[in-house]
């Protein structure tokens, strides 16, 4: 059973001795290809042996209510709301975890079933503290809609009069209110199985059971990476993002403050869902109008900073490669001379170290640093690899630093009065903007991070119907960015942008020669871990923008650039373990890591619910947007080149860029005191 895989492609965490008895029948029977006929509510359907009742019912278009079931997660079967009647069986069965192994007759809505479901809901509500109208999930709560569906009109078993637990407000990113928890354990399965971070688990037993962190410590003290995947999967308001909208409104209403917002590509692909649109409707330019209507003084495109990131991170990669290459040569020379003249090797190495310190191996592969969830994951679980993580700040923070320096200078606004807001699909960005080191300009780079959901709430609050807003463009001096910036929102996007730029900078050829329409297909898709090789057959002249760093590219001629992409920290963990063991990925040069499944578009700040289909639709919207841009490569962004000409005059990875756009990391470790 070692090859038994969960939907997201990795083995179950159950011990070998317990690994699903039912699942074994399931795999085996499906492999046999045996079909079985079942009758659900009088309608017959033929399904492969081992299909669950719930799946079969879904195929028939019969709705069975679920609560603990989630497409992205392994089965739990704990909430029992999906119970059905199986003819000939005494007890009701949970349809989500009942694999069909015999031609059974199922009834999904008999009086007994309806009564049982109603009772289950009544019992859940008896332990549920909090009023719906003060809940941030009001209108989008699975418990609320089930209560409505089953006509709950009074509290049969009473209700909580007082909160049982304190609300955990310790984290910048997440708020945990266990009074609203229904113990479905979706967050547990998200944290342990989907993301393999392991922050939340059920503690204690019986009526004392609750979902807690290790030692019931506050979230800010445990290994939480703030990815917010648990928020996206929580059926109630027990988990939510730390909402900063009040502060943002306050800043907007303050006439002395100049409030600017930057919008990331993923929220633009997702926000339509908050306004009743189907997933995958990009709202970019309509949202600009709505944001100005809300009162934001300027609306900028985070993609500008994404382009900046590509230039900085690409340059950093090239510098690392060059240093590694020089190291290799140095070492080879040393080895040879050591063999021939053992007595001379000492002086030789000292001589060489005067320009390159080869005692310190260059950390390769370089890891991306755009995903703050991944960065904190690395800080906790792989602190020894932190020097592999690119020193570049994430686009959000780079933009913040530029806004409070370059933009303030240019417009004459005192940076003290600039309030920078970032619209992100991400809860970890709220943590990131509060990192103490993120204030290179002397001010906090980004004052507030907003999630897609929070912005949708703000837009609704000013009475704007987003889908019917006129379109308008982004504000200058940063303008509309490139297609490369847009695809940052989807897994593989950073890698694709980097390949487009690095390839063109090095070879001087168009990347279209290698990939149709500059679409680097090998790094696209939703496969957990992807690997690609890019041969550099010939090299061109060094472009002006980095000519101060490189004399020529001859050292790269004939080299093969090896890259990999991983999304979801479970996959990141797999890649990291491979690197630790010296496997294939340790030979890579550049690896993109995204903490959330699907990349930013599946982030913890995106509209709820989430599923593989929704994420695929959002990805399509992002790739469509990329295709619609005329400029699709970061290094061709005219506004960006202007910034390098006017402000970052010492070029990529120069002194000023290092001060403003680069950062350092904190090894945190996984042990909690």
């Amino acid at each position: 059973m070692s090859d038994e895989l969960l939907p997201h492609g990795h083995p179950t965490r159950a011990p070998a001795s317990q690994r699903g008895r039912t699942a074994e029948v399931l795999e085996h029977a499906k492999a046999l290809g045996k079909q079985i006929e079942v009758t659900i509510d009088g309608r017959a359907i033929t399904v492969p042996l081992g299909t669950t009742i719930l799946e079969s019912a879904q195929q028939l278009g019969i709705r069975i209510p679920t609560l603990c079931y989630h497409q992205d997660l392994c089965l739990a079967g704990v909430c029992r709301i999906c119970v059905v009647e199986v003819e000939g069986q005494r007890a009701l069965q949970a349809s989500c975890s009942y694999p069909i192994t015999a031609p059974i007759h199922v009834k999904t809505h008999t009086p007994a079933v309806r009564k049982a479901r109603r009772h289950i809901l009544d019992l859940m509500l008896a332990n549920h503290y909090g009023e719906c109208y003060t809940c941030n999930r009001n209108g989008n709560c699975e418990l609320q809609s089930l209560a409505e569906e089953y006509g709950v009109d009074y509290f049969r078993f009473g209700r909580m009069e007082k909160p049982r637990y304190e609300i955990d407000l310790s984290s910048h990113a997440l708020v945990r209110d266990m009074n609203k928890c229904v113990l479905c354990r979706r967050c547990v399965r998200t944290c342990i199985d989907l993301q393999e971070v392991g922050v939340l688990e059920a503690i204690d037993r019986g009526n004392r059971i609750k979902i807690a962190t290790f030692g019931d410590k506050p979230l800010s003290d445990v290994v939480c990476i703030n990815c917010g995947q648990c928020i996206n999967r929580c059926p109630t308001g027990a988990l939510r993002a730390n909402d900063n909208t009040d502060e943002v409104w306050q800043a907007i209403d303050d006439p002395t403050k100049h409030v600017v917002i930057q919008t990331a590509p993923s929220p633009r692909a997702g926000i339509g869902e908050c306004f009743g649109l189907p997933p995958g409707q990009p709202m970019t330019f309509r949202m600009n109008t709505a944001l100005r209507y809300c009162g934001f003084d300027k609306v900028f495109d985070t993609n500008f900073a994404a382009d900046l990131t590509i230039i900085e991170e690409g340059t950093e990669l090239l510098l690392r490669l060059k240093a590694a290459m020089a190291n290799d040569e140095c070492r080879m020379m040393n080895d040879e001379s050591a063999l021939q003249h053992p007595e001379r090797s000492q002086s030789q190495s000292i001589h060489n170290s005067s320009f390159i310190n080869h005692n310190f191996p260059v950390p390769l592969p370089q890891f991306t640093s755009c995903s703050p969830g991944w960065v904190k994951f690395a800080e906790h679980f792989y602190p020894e690899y932190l020097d592999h993580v690119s020193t570049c700040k994430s686009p959000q923070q780079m933009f913040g630093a530029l806004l409070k320096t370059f933009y303030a200078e240019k417009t004459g606004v005192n940076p003290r009065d600039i309030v920078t807001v970032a619209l992100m699909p991400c809860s970890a960005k709220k943590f990131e903007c509060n990192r103490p080191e993120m204030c290179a300009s002397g001010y906090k780079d980004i004052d507030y991070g907003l999630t897609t959901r929070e912005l949708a709430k703000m837009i609704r609050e000013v009475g704007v119907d987003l889908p019917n807003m006129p379109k308008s463009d982004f504000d200058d001096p940063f303008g509309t960015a490139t297609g490369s910036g847009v695809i940052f929102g989807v897994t593989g996007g950073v890698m694709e942008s980097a390949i487009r730029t690095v390839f063109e900078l090095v070879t001087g050829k168009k990347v279209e020669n290698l990939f149709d329409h500059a679409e680097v297909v090998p790094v696209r898709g939703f496969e957990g871990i992807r690997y690609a090789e890019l041969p550099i057959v010939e090299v061109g002249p060094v472009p002006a923008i980095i000519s101060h760093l490189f004399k020529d590219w001859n050292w790269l001629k004939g080299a093969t650039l090896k890259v990999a992409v991983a999304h979801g920290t479970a996959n990141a963990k797999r890649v990291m373990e491979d690197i630790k063991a010296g496997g294939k990925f340790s030979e890579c040069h550049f690896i993109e890591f995204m903490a959330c499944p699907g990349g930013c578009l599946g982030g913890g700040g995106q509209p709820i619910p989430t599923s593989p289909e929704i994420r695929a639709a959002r990805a399509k919207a992002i790739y469509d947007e990329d295709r619609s841009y005329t400029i699709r490569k970061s290094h061709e962004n005219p506004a960006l080149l202007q910034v390098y000409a006017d402000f970052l005059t010492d070029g990529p990875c120069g002194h000023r860029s290092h001060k403003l756009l680069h950062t350092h990391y904190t090894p945190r470790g996984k042990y909690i005191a």
Partner: protein
Amino acid sequence: MLVTEQERLRDDLVKMTDRFGRDRSALMPILQELMRTRYHISEYSMQVIADLLDIHPVEVSSVVSFYSFLEDKQRGQFVIRLCRTIACDMSGEGNVARQLVNDLGIEFGGTTPDGKFTLGWANCLGMCDQGPAMLVNEKIYTQVTPEKVHSILEECRSTFGVHATVDKERC
């Protein structure tokens, strides 16, 4: 050589994984062994176990919080659990309980200041025909009378049984 308590604990746990394996299913035997030798499972040891078995610390603490016989707070060397079900109750469990409280000078749920005894309840030990029943660590006593309580406790106090031996080895 100076060895910190944490280092020694880690060494012990590594030895236990050598003995019980590094699979997830080795978790229970390791926790039980830890209870036998150190009378509680500290947060630090949970994290070390998680590290060794490649699972998450929170999963270990979940297991520890689930079972009554696994504890994260320090308990005595001898845990006395008196059965409080109806059969034992009818055969005079009340007197035994009073004798225990008097003799040890602690209430149920407490631990003696010398860390020797912890007193608690059990819900049926399956000895309903021979009540009152009492469990001292892993040893069961049946038909306990207040007089027997005294001798059982004396026996514990004077015993350098498995626990004391372990202690000696450690010191």
